[in-house]
C-alpha cells in the first residue's frame, strides 16, 4: 500500500472514532470534541475526494462555527460549575454494542461488495471557479433561499434568546 493509502486509513479511523466518541461519551464536552474529530476526519476525506475547498469549508463551518456554538450552548445551558453528565447507565453499553455489531455487519457487506464492484474510477476534480459558476448560474434560487434561511434563522435565534430573557 502506498503512504497515501495509509494516511487514508488513518483519516477514516479518525472519522469513525470521532463519531463514536460523539455519540457514546459520557460528558457533553467530550462528545463535542468527538464531533470535532469526526469533522476533521471528514475534511480529510473531502481532500481525498479532490474537493479541498469543501474540506476547508467543512473545517471553517463545522469546527469554527457550529462546534463553537455548541460549546457555547454547553457552557451557557449547564450552570458553569456543573458538568452536564450524559447517560452512564448500562444503556450505554447496550448502545455501544449495537453500533459495533451493526457497523461490523455493514463493513463485511461492503468489503464483499467492494471486491465485486470496485469501480476503479478516479474522483472527479472540481475547481473552485467551477463551483462558483454552478452556484450563480444553475443553482441561483437555492443559493438565495439558503441565504434567506440563514438570515431568518439568525433572527429567530436572537428572538428566542430575547424572548426567554423577558420571561425570566
Amino acid at each position, binding site marked *: 500500500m502506498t503512504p497515501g*493509502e495509509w494516511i487514508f486509513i488513518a483519516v477514516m479511523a479518525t472519522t469513525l472514532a470521532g463519531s463514536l466518541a*460523539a455519540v457514546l461519551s459520557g460528558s457533553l464536552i467530550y*462528545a463535542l470534541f468527538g464531533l470535532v474529530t469526526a469533522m476533521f476526519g471528514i475534511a480529510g476525506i473531502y481532500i481525498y475526494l479532490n474537493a479541498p475547498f469543501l474540506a476547508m469549508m467543512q473545517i471553517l463551518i463545522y469546527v469554527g462555527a*457550529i462546534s463553537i456554538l455548541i460549546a457555547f450552548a454547553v457552557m451557557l445551558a449547564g450552570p458553569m460549575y456543573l458538568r452536564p453528565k450524559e447517560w452512564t447507565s448500562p444503556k450505554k453499553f447496550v448502545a455501544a454494542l449495537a453500533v459495533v455489531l451493526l457497523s461490523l455487519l455493514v463493513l463485511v457487506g461492503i468489503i464483499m461488495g467492494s471486491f465485486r464492484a470496485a*469501480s476503479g*474510477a478516479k474522483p472527479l476534480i*472540481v475547481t473552485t471557479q467551477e463551483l462558483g459558476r454552478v452556484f450563480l448560474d444553475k443553482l441561483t434560487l437555492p443559493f438565495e433561499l*439558503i441565504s434567506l434561511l440563514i438570515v431568518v434563522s439568525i433572527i429567530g435565534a436572537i428572538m*428566542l434568546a430575547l424572548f*426567554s430573557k423577558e420571561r425570566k
Partner: protein
Amino acid sequence: MTGNLLYNNLHLYLFIALFLLGCGLLGVMYRRTLIGMLISMELIMNGAGLNLVALNSFSAQGNAYGIAFTLFIMGIAAAEAAIALGIIIAVFRRFGHIEGGQIKEMKG
C-alpha cells in the same frame, strides 16, 4: 494503477457515510440532553454531505451539483445550530435543565 488505490473506492466512502448516519440515529434516540441530540444531528448531516460528494465525484458527469449541495447542507447546518442554540437557551431558562425527555410542558 490509480484505480486500485483504496481511496478510489466509492463504497468505502458510502460506508463511512452510513456509519455516520447510524451513529447519529443512535445518538438522537439515546441522548438525554438536547445538546447531545444536536451533536448527533450534525453527524447525520455530515453523513449526507459525504454521500453527496462521494457520489458526485465518482458518478457525476463533470458537474459539481453534489459539492454545491453539500455546501447547502453546511449552510443549513449552521442555521440549524443557531436556532438550536436559541432553543436550548430558551429551554434552559424555562425549565432549568436541558434534558429532552423531561420536557413535558411545551405550551407557554
